[in-house]
């Protein structure tokens, strides 16, 4: 995929389900309390998390560039479902459909 990004992606291929950055406020246990999508537009406001569902971890590609993620499935206050993950290498949070 990185090759594709370097070469032909802009021309022909567009990856689907690309992670989008989110800002997350965490509780003491490291689980999301509130989230804010992106930095602009309609997602500018904070949304409270009503409940936290499944939590799982993904580790891959340790042999070249480590991918380590902690996924958290949350139900938002207005009822929507969302899947977030914390990049355990950089500490950043992203939203993504699992």
């Amino acid at each position, binding site marked *: 995929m990185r090759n*594709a990004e370097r070469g032909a992606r802009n021309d022909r291929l567009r*990856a689907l389900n690309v992670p989008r950055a989110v800002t997350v406020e965490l509780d003491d246990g490291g689980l999301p309390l509130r989230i804010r999508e992106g930095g602009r537009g309609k997602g500018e406001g904070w949304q409270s998390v009503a409940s936290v569902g499944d939590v799982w971890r993904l580790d891959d590609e340790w042999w070249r560039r480590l991918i380590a993620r902690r996924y958290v499935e949350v139900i938002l206050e207005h009822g929507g479902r969302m899947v977030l993950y914390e990049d355990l290498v950089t500490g950043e949070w992203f939203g993504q459909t699992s």
Partner: protein
Amino acid sequence: MTYKVDSSVLPGMILRDMFGIQFSALESMSHPPSPVPRPLSSDYALCCWIPLYALRLEEARRPELTARPAALLTADTTRRLWQVSPLARRAGVRSGMTVSRAIGLCATLRLCEPDPVFYEEEFARLVAALSRVSPVVEPVELGRAYVGTDGLEGLFGGPDQIVEVVQLRIADCGLRIGSAGVESAIHNPQSAIRLGWGKGKFVSWTAATRAKPGECVIVQPGEEGTFLAAQPLAALPIDPDTHRRLRQLGLRTLGQLAALPEDAVAAQFGDAGRRLWRLAAGQTVEPVTGRPAPEPVAAQLTFYSPVADRALLARALDRLLDRALASPRRVGWRVQTARLSAALEHGGSWSTVVTLRDPTARREGIAAPLLARWDAAPPAGAVERLTVEFTALVPGTTELQLFARDADAAARAGRRRALRAAVREILQRLRRPMLYRVIELEPWSRIPERRYALIDLDE
């Protein structure tokens, strides 16, 4: 005004509603249904082969593909590579690869969505051109067809002359392959067409694979064994595993295989081995088997008194086309060439032929060019008899037909045409293609963003 029925022509038909005039006319199919045709076959075969046929057609449509590595995707849902251009092969890309792997090997690879309906239509054009030389034509796959040449010597002469006629017919059919037209297919090293002539399909196919682009290899009768003996094992229709086993036995050529006892090969490889041995030894002659092509469909209308009124004739033409299109022989085929002929009042005649750029089964699509020809050069007198004949048909229809043999192809063609029209419109308005197709990259990947991607939906 009254017209009478000519009962000598069957089946008759009475037209009642042309401009409110009651008259009788007759209409007939000039070719009544024939009994089950005898299978056509020919021992001597000319193999016409266009390597990477689909990719060559795409290059003809999009010349920019010739200058860069390109590959066609498969038409199914696996989204692997189907045909790979030589430039892409040089970069290590192979057919059957996943898109992600191919892009990893060649970042500038240009991927093309396949257009199987277009390929089939163009191939049908090629087959139709070959059918003008011989009634025995056997299409095997896209880009490869055999022409039976038994009995053609009396018409054209020896194999050299037959080959020349076939090359001329191919050049004449208007097919465009690769960066050059087929007009330059003959004796042209840039051409994609290779021909091979010999006894049986295997010999002719092997000869075609040995031919240079634009050339033909002729294996004279009696020389099959010598010719085959020098050919590599890869010429045999075998799977990679059998090929590997044969090579492990130290065999490299068909001659080495044929030198082994037939029973020994059969003991190792079973019946398939016996067949391979016989092919290698030139002892099997697989004849070319033709398929019945649709006969021309015709409809005829005889006026009791000569008609000169253009509107009346146009209406009569519509009726004739309706009748011809309704012929059971036409179902599943589209009209490519239509001839309109008229017998005139004082013994003269008039005729015109139109070849439709887009073969169709719609009456309006056929009537309009015929009437345009009529208006441009009308007949010199009143018409006594009007005949419509569909002389060339191509498979596939775009109209919905419950019992058509190609209902699936028709549905695919319809969807693709609608999509192409949408793409064109969006491009015109927004200057950017906004329609994409989802393709699989690594659907097994644990990392979600690597599983699927969008690719431009080509026009």
